[in-house]
């Protein structure tokens, strides 16, 4: 697109090149022509972040961060604020869907090797986004001040007491007192409002890193020339819009028809520091990590294993020794990838149950396998695996449906 001839636009652009920037990054931005629908989830997650911030700002106008009023103020939003129920249910379910989208986005990156050179920092910024999301979601869940809010906050903050020597001091410092109490709620509200804007900043860096080398693609090979790329607009804008429509249909089903399906009924009971609920279960998106925590018999090592399961993702670009990006051409890794997916679901399943009987054993095996995958299988498979021959360019195999297989067959020795 050439810049519009409008004088005002040109005057502004000459001094502040926002129009040129948008033209480069949203319009002409050359993108591999063969991206499949798994490449929709990044932009979807970005849109959900905006939805969360907008609904959150409106909720904050009505919410009262005080232990005596927080629960009632959330219910007041549900009952007396115009469309408050809508804002609240969008925000509450939006958190779950944000994680669904980001988890799919991460697994897509793992499958197609999107973390490999030159996209290591892009990947690491993504993990920073995940960590910020988790902190934000955890603190947001505390705000309604229900039973799970209170006891979840108690359990999670108490994890820091596992650190020898300074543990208890850290916990007191986090709480702002000697128990989860009003100062805790106040600081969680403050940080819950702050962190999403940090998230926006890191997402910005994520996009800068993305646009430096452009998207990876299902074949995982670099673009060889202009024939491998298409402009972002209109091809991927319309594809992302369609994907957004499908997502919103699923999202709206939950918001309007099953708004409490992903929530715990116990969080509609006001927080009571004197009464521990029979089960303290985190939100579903934390369950795999909760399972890892509880699979280690020692508290300190359990905490380390849990945080380690996230931190290990930072070094995935160097743990994976294979030069081939896409699992499509990696006959061994492809299966190991699906084992990891099953392993994560198993961890989530174990995390939802009391650590008794078989759940302990399954949890330990799954925890062991999680680390085995990243620390052993990922490097070792790269050494011995014989990848399938790569197509010479993106254009050759994507000519038409099934063309890729033809192209592959042609290039086999």
């Amino acid at each position, binding site marked *: 697109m050439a810049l519009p001839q409008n004088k005002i636009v040109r005057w502004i652009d000459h001094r502040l090149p926002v129009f040129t920037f948008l033209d480069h990054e949203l319009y002409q931005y050359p993108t591999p022509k063969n991206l*499949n629908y798994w490449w929709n989830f990044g932009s979807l997650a970005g849109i959900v972040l905006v939805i969360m911030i907008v609904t959150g700002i409106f909720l904050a106008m009505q919410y009262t961060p005080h232990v005596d009023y927080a629960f009632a103020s959330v*219910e007041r939003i549900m009952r007396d604020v115009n469309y408050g129920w809508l804002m609240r249910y969008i925000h509450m379910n939006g958190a779950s869907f944000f994680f669904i989208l980001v988890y799919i986005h991460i697994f897509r990156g793992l499958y197609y090797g999107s973390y490999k050179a030159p996209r290591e920092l892009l990947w690491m910024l993504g993990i920073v986004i995940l960590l910020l999301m988790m902190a934000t979601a955890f603190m947001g869940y505390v705000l309604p001040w229900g039973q799970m809010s209170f006891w979840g906050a108690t359990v999670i903050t108490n994890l820091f007491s596992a650190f020898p020597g300074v543990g208890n001091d850290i916990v007191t410092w986090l709480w702002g007192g000697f128990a989860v109490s009003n100062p805790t709620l106040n600081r969680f509200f403050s940080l819950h409002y702050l962190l999403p804007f940090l998230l926006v900043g890191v997402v910005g860096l994520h996009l800068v890193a993305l646009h430096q080398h452009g998207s990876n693609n299902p074949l995982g090979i670099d673009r060889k020339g202009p024939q491998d790329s298409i402009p972002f607009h209109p091809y991927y804008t*319309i594809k992302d819009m369609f994907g957004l429509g499908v997502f919103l249909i699923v999202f*709206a089903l939950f918001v309007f028809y099953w708004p409490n*399906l992903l929530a715990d009924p116990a969080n509609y*009971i006001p927080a009571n520091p004197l009464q521990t609920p029979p089960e303290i279960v985190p939100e*579903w998106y934390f369950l795999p990590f909760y399972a890892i925590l509880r699979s280690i018999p020692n508290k300190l090592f359990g905490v380390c294993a849990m945080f380690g399961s996230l931190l290990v993702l930072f070094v995935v670009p160097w743990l994976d020794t294979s030069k081939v990006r896409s699992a499509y051409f990696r006959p061994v890794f492809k299966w190991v990838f699906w084992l990891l997916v099953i392993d994560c679901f198993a961890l989530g399943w174990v995390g939802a149950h009391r650590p008794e009987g078989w759940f302990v054993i399954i949890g330990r095996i799954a925890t062991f396998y999680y680390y085995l995958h990243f620390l052993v299988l990922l490097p070792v498979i790269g050494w011995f695996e014989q990848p399938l021959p790569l197509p010479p360019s993106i254009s050759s195999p994507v000519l038409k449906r099934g063309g890729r297989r033809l192209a592959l067959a042609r290039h086999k020795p």
Partner: protein
Amino acid sequence: MTRRRIMPALAGAALLALGAGAAWAQDSSEPPLPKMEWSFNGPFGTFDRAALQRGFQVYNEVCSACHSMNLLSYRDLEGPSALGYSADEVAAIAATKQVTDGPNDQGAMFQRGGRPADHFVAPFANAEAARAANGGALPPDLSVIIKARAGGADYVHAILTGFRDPPQDMKMAAGMNYNMYFPGHQIAMPPPLTDNRVTFADGTPATIDQEARDVATFLAWASEPTMEERKRTGAKVMIFLLVMTGVLYGAKRRVWSSLHDKDEKDS
């Protein structure tokens, strides 16, 4: 595995995980809650107004002796989207209550008749008074009880109709009552409902089951008075989204068709 097979695989796995997350609260010692037919179930479900009014009567004449509903005001009962009472009827209901107000210009608290804007008057001044009057047990506030219990209205109905004589071999703690559906079976609440505990104005026979159904319906409304608005809005939103997504799909096909045509020629 081809790319086309990944999508359903992941979707299926995601559904499995959601199911696992929702199923954590199952306990085997209580029988499963009877599944009731509620007028408010399903995507187009609405509250049965007659049942709501009868249910409010049960709450007002029976439950409210011990259970507060602090999040509700009498004005909430008014209008066709609530219980269907007129403004005058709500004012009459509120006027039967005594509300502590103040302080007045002498600095003293005083009693006055209730107004529609007042919150439901609680039976006890505070939790300690409630415990003292109930053998140490705190009757929970019922404002959001349907959302606060796994099983929702089914659970409340089951508890209200689930009182039985304890089994021979069961040792009951002092002041406790046996209930089939209550976790652990020992509940401090004595059986609150009996046949003809209330007399319904519309002539509906007041069996225990009917009273329990009606009060569960009323509590379901109280837990989420905006449910009908939510479902109505949802229907409109879904229609809009389906049409919009269909149009976007058509646009996507059209935009990309030129690209696919070009590829065909190139090959």
